[in-house]
């Protein structure tokens, strides 16, 4: 609002504040010229107590939809509000839901599945906009079983032919760490446990990137990896005070769940870090173990590309060098001329082995070998059947009698 001043039309100083319908205006009393208009919309502070009314609620649009569809749409909208998603997501999710419910394969499913369908639509929308939402979160919000959610999600993806991009780990790290209660001083958080958020996020991202380069992420659930990486980064930022804290205690203090696979991921990460530490010149003299390597995570992450190359046989030439026993081959990295072992299992001190997924380095079951015998190959399916062969599958009459008496068959 222009304070004071004179009217540009007539020069009069008689300015009056008036309201034209709902709009505030600064008007010249003598000539009626409008000097300034108020905003048509209210400010954020004024809007706090107002509720915006959606178009669908003020018009009769809702009455055209069936009650089930209305309920489903309301559920989808509530889910979006709970997750604090932008409005665009809500519209997209509702449109997917409407499309899905009209589809013949979802039209007649149970109410439980229709509710899960709403959750799946929200989930798909978030993934398409790179919003890191995990299935676990949606399932816990809907109180749904993960298997049922998985089947509904996969059939939705198939029927509506939606292309759902992969979950971005970087975004997941940021969102997951937001839920940790370690970044502010609180009554139940001891002082040495509080950490700076930016540093922890950066270091956790680096550890997660390291995990994805070393086959620890492919095929695994992402949340335990992020939790384990967060624990390692938190410990490494102040090792003196935090090395004695266990993983379980860390999760309890941070206020997050400890998923069961996280312990295994932690173990695998520490193994990779130990292998890398064995290649770092100034750490070779020390005897590293799982506790002490945490102190040097900063250095290891800084030089991780070089250390990974040296710690594992990553290049093709080095693999061929490993298989050709004792042969010299033109290998580029000068740091390792000797000590390429033949298999990953026989790992000598500091000798590089192949970088394999953990299930290949510790195989639980023996890998099947194809060995069809000659007699199997000769089967045609039309051979004559001998009576003696069939007799073994039938009970004799005495057996049947005895069985009848014993069982007292009705």
């Amino acid at each position, binding site marked *: 609002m222009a304070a004071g001043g004179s009217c540009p039309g007539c020069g009069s100083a008689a300015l009056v504040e008036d309201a034209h319908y709902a709009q505030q205006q600064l008007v010249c009393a003598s000539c009626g010229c409008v000097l300034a208009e108020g905003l048509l919309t209210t400010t954020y502070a004024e809007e706090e107590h107002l509720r915006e009314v959606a178009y669908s609620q003020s018009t009769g649009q809702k009455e055209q939809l069936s009650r089930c569809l209305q309920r489903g749409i309301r559920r989808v909208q509530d889910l979006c509000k709970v997750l604090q998603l932008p409005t665009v997501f809500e519209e997209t999710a509702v449109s997917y839901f409407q499309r899905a419910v009209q589809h013949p394969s979802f039209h007649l499913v149970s109410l439980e599945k229709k509710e899960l369908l709403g959750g799946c639509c929200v989930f798909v929308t978030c993934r398409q906009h790179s919003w890191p939402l*995990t*299935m*676990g979160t949606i399932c816990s919000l809907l109180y749904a079983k993960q298997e049922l959610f*998985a089947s509904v*999600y*996969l059939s939705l*993806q198939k029927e509506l*032919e939606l*292309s759902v991009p*992969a*979950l971005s780990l970087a975004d997941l790290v940021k969102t997951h760490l937001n839920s940790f209660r370690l970044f502010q001083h609180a009554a139940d958080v001891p002082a040495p446990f509080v950490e700076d958020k930016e540093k922890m996020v950066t270091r956790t991202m680096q550890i997660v990137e390291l995990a994805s380069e070393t*086959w620890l*992420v*492919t*095929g*695994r*659930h*992402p949340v335990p990896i992020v939790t384990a990486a967060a624990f390692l980064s938190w410990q490494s930022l102040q090792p003196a005070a935090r090395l004695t804290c266990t993983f379980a205690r860390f999760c309890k203090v941070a206020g997050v769940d400890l998923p069961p696979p996280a312990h295994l991921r932690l173990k695998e990460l520490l193994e990779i870090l130990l292998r890398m530490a064995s290649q770092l010149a100034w750490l070779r003299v020390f005897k590293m173990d799982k506790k002490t390597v945490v102190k040097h995570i900063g250095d290891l992450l800084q030089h991780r590309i070089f250390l990974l190359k040296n710690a594992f046989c990553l290049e*093709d030439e080095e693999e061929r060098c490993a298989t050709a026993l004792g042969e010299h081959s033109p290998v580029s990295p000068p740091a390792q001329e000797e000590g390429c072992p033949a298999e990953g299992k026989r790992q000598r001190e500091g000798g590089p082995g192949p*970088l*394999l*997924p953990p*299930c*290949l380095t510790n195989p639980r079951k023996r*890998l*099947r*070998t*194809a060995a*069809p015998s000659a007699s*199997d190959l000769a*089967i*045609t*399916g*039309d*051979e004559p*059947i001998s*009576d003696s*062969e*069939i*007799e*073994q*599958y*039938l*009970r004799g009459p005495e057996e*049947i009698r005895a*069985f*009848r008496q014993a069982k007292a*068959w009705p």
Partner: protein
Amino acid sequence: MDADSDVALDILITNVVCVFRTRCHLNLRKIALEGANVIYKRDVGKVLMKLRKPRITATIWSSGRVMCTGATSEEEAKFGARRLARSLQKLGFQVIFTDFKVVNVLAVCNMPFEIRLPEFTKNNRPHASYEPELHPAVCYRIKTLRATLQIFSTGSITVTGPNVKAVASAVEQIYPFVFESRK
């Protein structure tokens, strides 16, 4: 290394499922009483009969439909199915062995390299589906062959298809794509 067809991959068939009809009503109680190696599931109305020589488990319904699982080749499946029909004949039923059909073949194949699954999914967008939160493998569907492949990061591939030829073609088709995204 080039993705040429000279690479010999061992495709190991682990299971062949087949069905056939006996064209007569079967009394399940009689089969359960007089047959050896049988399990009678009265609540679902079927009898499970296991053969030893071809290691096969047959599910027998009273309508005369029989499903056999556990064979390691199509010929073995027919071999076992005929033996089963003969056993039912010996039990006194007027069995006619008809409508024999192999419905599903499950095979396993090992690639000599590891596979980067996220890269593979990105390159094969509509056919490949990868949800690490649900299953560790990429699910790749070939509509023309009606085959489904599950591709693991270790290079192991599980193929299911309607017959052995479809399974072999599926492995042949997937090899170049998988080779692109190898480690």
